[in-house]
């Protein structure tokens, strides 16, 4: 009887080990291609979709506000402010989400590289911290004062986001087509094809 219980315990133990190993296989491998592609997507979304000057100018432009207030009844003014607040909060949520994606990438990336410039890493960490704090502060300002009471904070956030994007661009430069083109040229001499 004791032998049977022991065999059962060993069997259960083996099953648990198998389950743990199976779960580990499903976890993403640090530094795998998917992380680079996701980081690249986050960067592109920030640079092309969320941080272009014309888009930010449109969302926070005071001219629209002045126009509505000067030409329309009060309820349309309220509708306009409500809509702009909704859009600016949506913009902020998206920026924050993409910044967090980039931050996650940099955290994993720094673990993979032994030759890191301490100064660059500190600067990047400060920029990310500043960005996330600016996101929180801007969110509060947008809720309390609306989209037209947060102009300075929007500038701080976009400037910091621009710096982070520039740093990330350097880290992901090897994924750019010209880099691949140079690899292709280099490999041509050996008869290898990419």
């Amino acid at each position: 009887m004791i032998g049977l219980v022991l065999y059962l315990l060993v069997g259960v133990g083996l099953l648990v080990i198998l389950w743990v190993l199976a779960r580990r296989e499903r976890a993403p491998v640090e530094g795998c291609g998917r992380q680079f592609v996701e980081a690249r997507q986050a960067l592109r979304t920030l640079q092309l979709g969320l941080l272009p000057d014309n888009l930010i100018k449109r969302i926070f432009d005071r001219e629209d506000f002045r126009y509505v207030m000067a030409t329309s009844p009060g309820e349309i003014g309220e509708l306009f402010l409500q809509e702009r607040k909704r859009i600016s909060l949506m913009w902020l949520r998206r920026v924050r989400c993409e910044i967090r994606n980039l931050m996650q990438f940099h955290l994993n990336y720094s673990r993979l590289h032994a030759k890191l410039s301490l100064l660059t890493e500190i600067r990047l960490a400060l920029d990310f911290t500043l960005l996330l704090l600016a996101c929180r502060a801007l969110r509060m300002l947008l809720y309390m004062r609306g989209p037209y009471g947060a102009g300075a904070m929007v500038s701080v956030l976009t400037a910091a986001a621009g710096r982070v994007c520039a740093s990330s661009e350097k880290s992901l430069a090897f994924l750019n087509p010209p880099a691949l083109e140079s690899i292709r040229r280099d490999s041509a001499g050996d008869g290898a094809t990419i």
Partner: protein
Amino acid sequence: MSAPAKHVDVLAAADDLRRRTLAGMAQPLERLIYLASTRDYNTGLYYHHGLALRFSEESACEALADCHREAFEELVDASLEQLVHELEAYLESTRVAPNDFIVAWKGLEPYRVAIPVGIDSLSSELVFSNLKVALAILEARLTARTKPGASRHPSPVQ
């Protein structure tokens, strides 16, 4: 057809489209609605008979898609004041009773299906939001201008 030759064909088709069909549509909103109407709802592909005859169906499709994106980008960059003017001009060009137009656009929001594919959701939400406010401004103006301008037709949207 090689990729560069196809690209040249698409550019030529887009240029032709701008010079002929779109030349009469000064407002981006008008162009956006027109170009969206050339897109098949089921396949997402654009079709323009004349353009497909002159170039290829594929080039015509890409040229229409390019012009559609272009019109949308112009709308994203437009100020609210410009958008109100555009909406007013579009309303005049449709020759529909103003009240019917306002009721249909407020209820059905047809501009939501007129967006090119692959556009960032924030840009499209900004345009939808601006159009919503522009419609409210236009409605207030129409109400202030004339009361007996109400339509004799039943409302298309309940």
